């Protein structure tokens, strides 16, 4: 009997749950074709996945799928930003053609990043006390929800509530 964590175990689970994974991915990315792309990528990743014992194999697969979607989102955003900068550069270059001068965008990028970091830090510092404490312990100090619950003497769902409140405020402060 193969353990849940073994490659054949995960692949077996994948085959078992593929329809649900696909349904989840369609809802998650909003595009059937791309969802099928991701579920295929997930299958390929299982080959190289190094895992120890897994308590919840189904959850593990969903989490993997979610991370693959996040990877794509991240890439898409990077591309959008680069294209945006490139467009700005292009209009500045005039007759010089389509070559993007390297040094200027990098300096610009650095300034943008530094400004963004400052805004994020400021937004975190302005969070309500309980939410700020939980958020910092989790995202900055790297504690798990369970460890935070212990530390603060609250329940795990209490920690989740704090995190949800934190994200709500941060999104409003940074993305609106």
């Amino acid at each position, binding site marked *: 009997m193969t353990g849940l964590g073994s490659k054949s175990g995960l692949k077996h689970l994948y085959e078992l749950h593929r329809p*649900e994974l696909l*349904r*989840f991915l369609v*809802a*998650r*990315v*909003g595009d059937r074709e791309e969802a099928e792309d991701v579920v295929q990528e997930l299958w390929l990743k299982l080959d190289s996945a190094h895992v120890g014992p897994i*308590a*919840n194999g*189904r*959850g593990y697969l*969903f*989490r993997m799928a*979610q991370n693959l979607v*996040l990877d794509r*989102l*991240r890439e898409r*955003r990077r591309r959008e930003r680069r294209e945006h900068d490139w467009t700005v550069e292009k209009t500045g270059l005039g007759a010089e053609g389509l070559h993007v001068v390297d040094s200027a965008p990098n300096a610009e990028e650095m300034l943008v*990043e530094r400004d*963004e*970091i*400052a805004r*994020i*830090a400021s937004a*975190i*510092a302005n969070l309500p*006390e*309980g939410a*700020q*404490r939980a958020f*910092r312990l989790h*995202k*900055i100090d790297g504690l*798990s*929800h369970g460890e935070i*619950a212990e530390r603060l*003497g*609250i*329940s*795990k*769902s*209490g920690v*989740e*509530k704090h*995190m*949800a*409140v934190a*994200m*709500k405020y*941060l*999104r*409003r402060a*940074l*993305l609106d």
Partner: protein
Amino acid sequence: MEPAMEDGIWDAAARWHAEQEREDCDWDGFTAWLEADDRHRLAFDQVALLDDRISHARPLIAHSLPAEGAEMRVARFNFRWAGLGMAAGAAALAAVTVPMLATGGGQVAYSTAPGETRSIELADGSRVQLAAASSLTMDEGDVHEMTLKGTAWFEIPHDPSRSLVIHAGNFRVTDIGTKFEVNSNEDSLRVAVAEGSLTVASESLPRPVSLRGGQRFVAARNLDLAEVTRFDGREAGSWRHGRLVYQDAPLALVAADISRYAPTKVVVDPSIAGRRFSGVLSIGDGSGLVGNLQQFMGLAARREGDGIRLVARHRD
């Protein structure tokens, strides 16, 4: 760029995102939520990307963050809470059956019942407000020494020519002026200065501790340390306005305060006595205090004799 978003959608996205960490995350429920409306997916994208951005920029963000908590702490000492001859103090308290009593030997004693407060005016214009279930003894006439059990708010002008000592348990408060609160319990002590300065000393402290306005000294059994932290000076003596305000207060101290207002005595199980509480409790008639604290801290309450013991609750 995007269809109009509603607050409720952002809230739900943030909640779903927080739930993902769970071992038993409800993926089916999440799928159904995503399917219900296109905007849900877009909202979740934003939340996930923001979270991802923060994760990747963590070291830089950490560097730019004002130090929370650490900035509040001014000093910290190793400290062993010495069990004082509390029996003597308790006996003195039990003996006081009228609000003001000339105890003989040139001393006057004031005391309050649970839920009651009293104002005391001294000859030199100093004022003391005694909180519930507390007692204050002092010299008749010129006051050079006071002994406090419980909580009191003091407004005493700074006068270097006068030597005044307030005894609180195993501690002495000296070099006094002008507005401060002393909260002295069997297992904890807090001295909070709103304005002015004073000194807190004890055999168990390595050296006397000076406090200025906006500084607070806390020591408690179960903590093995004493701390000086910054705080909002306006919060000192908040019980005078019907609120108990705490920031990182040892649970034992909070329980001692609550016992002054609640119908029954509240103690904290030693296993959790060192936990810290931050928050505001409305005093009201005192009956809701224990329940509120329980909810905040995820604690259970067990009847013990004619009192209540707070213990850890079995959590998820």
